[in-house]
């Protein structure tokens, strides 16, 4: 089976600092996996390289067999890679509904319609409501997005990504800044989204309950390099990972 995403010896340096170095791994279709590692390990940089926000110094990133290196984010998202950001990247003054609807309109190729009111685009509107419903945000659809609680803004960001019907979804710390209760809900929700939207999902997380609770594969980055890769059980038992990140009493 062709991997959904394949990284081949990917490098990125800022000046003398190597942020990702010689990273190689393959993500299989339908897989849900986690990337963990200490702060500054290069996790977000890796996402930025995949989505074209940062160029790779060396190496190749293949998405369904096609090399993405050198393509702008706009083209990469069009090929089916969605992303939610560490700090929710939303449109704060628009309504919750319009945040999703603009993404649906974009996916349907209807952003160059100059005449009809956005509410008259029934298909985009229905799709947006369906996504908000699956996120549990439909009750707040007419509120401006900036009014949402922090956790809900992060969900909205995920919703924007989902509206573009990605094959591969990258989530950068989906539960960061959430309360323990919210974390648990988000964990269940993400698992549910992964199933119901038939996604290949890669997430960066510091919440170990989430990592070991829902990931099928865990990859550990340290100082820009891939330290370990395996099932949650393998990673939990890995001496190097325990020393570098998890700690003895985990």
């Amino acid at each position: 089976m062709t991997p959904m995403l394949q990284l081949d010896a990917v490098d990125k340096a800022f000046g003398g600092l190597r942020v990702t170095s010689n990273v190689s791994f393959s993500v299989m279709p339908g897989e849900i996996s986690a990337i963990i590692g200490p702060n500054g390990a290069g996790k977000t940089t890796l996402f930025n390289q995949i989505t074209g926000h940062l160029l790779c110094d060396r190496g190749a990133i293949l998405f369904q067999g096609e090399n993405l290196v050198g393509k702008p984010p706009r083209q990469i998202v069009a090929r089916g890679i969605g992303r939610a950001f560490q700090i929710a990247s939303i449109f704060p003054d628009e309504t919750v509904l319009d945040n999703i609807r603009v993404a649906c309109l974009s996916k349907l190729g209807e952003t160059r319609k100059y005449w009809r009111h956005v509410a008259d685009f029934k298909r985009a509107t229905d799709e947006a409501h369906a996504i908000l419903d699956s996120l549990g945000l439909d009750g707040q659809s007419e509120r401006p997005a900036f009014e949402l609680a922090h956790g809900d803004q992060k969900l909205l960001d995920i919703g924007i990504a989902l509206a573009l019907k990605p094959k591969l979804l990258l989530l950068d710390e989906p539960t960061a800044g959430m309360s323990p209760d919210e974390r648990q809900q988000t964990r269940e929700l993400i698992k549910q989204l992964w199933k119901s939207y038939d996604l290949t999902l890669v997430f960066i997380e510091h919440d170990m309950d989430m990592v070991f609770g829902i990931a099928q594969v865990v990859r550990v980055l340290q100082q820009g390099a891939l330290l370990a890769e395996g099932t949650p059980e393998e990673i939990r038992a890995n001496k190097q990972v325990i020393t570098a990140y998890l700690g003895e009493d985990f």
Partner: protein
Amino acid sequence: MTNLATRNLKAASLWAFIVLIFVLVPVLSTSSYQVNLACHVLIWSLFAVSFNMLWGVTGMLSLGQALYYGLGAYSVGLMVDHLGRQWYLPAMGLGVLAAAALALLLGLLVIRVGGVYFTMLTLAFAQLGWQITFKWYDFTGGDDGIQGIIPPGILESGTVYYYFVLAVVMLSIWVLKRMAFSPFGLVLRCVQQNPDRVRFLGRRVRRNQLRVYVISSLFSALAGSLMAGVDGSIHTDMLFWTTSGEVILMSVLGGINQFFGPFVGATVIILIEDLVGARTEYWSLIIGIIIMVIVLVFPKGVVGEAMRAKSLLTRTGAGR
């Protein structure tokens, strides 16, 4: 669906009300001066609303829209002056087309930079246009401007011309309003709030900025071309940066985040200028103070604050 119907009904009745007021002006007015004033209000409103498509909607603060306003006016002025009155209406069309072409050309240059650099570049190009108009005496009449621009046929009558202006302005503002709430308008607002995310929706930020720059400039030129016939004379001041500044002021005053904000702002400023200007020679001082007070009392603009008050009232009214 009920929501949709209510929305359409509300919008339609608002339109009907505004249009009715302006339709009644010549009937109720006691002098042709008042009709002339209403004409100024309408034209500045169109100019301000089209400017705000750039600034309030897309977040591009241009300090050079006077260039297109002046281009529209001078297209009409020059063609009527050199070729005759029958060229009045074709000149309006040509002015608008010329503005669209120029905006496309300059837009490719000025939208490459963002923020204050965009503002400064638009200012520089507009001042260049003003200098050329000012210095090229043989062609443009320099600082004498152009006098005796009389609209052709029945439009010569002040009242008929007023209704012509009313129709063109209302039609244009209606078109702009449709655009502002279409998917295109939504993308423009998103470009202002989070351009990086727009790119990651698979949309081109600069392409959309260029589109709205051309659209805004085209309607600014239309406003300018209408102005040529109102007083029968045009002047290089129409291209000067203070003209660009005036639409900024109107937008701020009315509220840049409301579609009709600049419309209300333009109306208020034109009326204040007229009222105060008739009574004292220190009118600019008085206007400055009045505007400062309004901006301090209504930081979101007159319409913006009104909408906020309304939403607060309806929320308490729901009284859960």
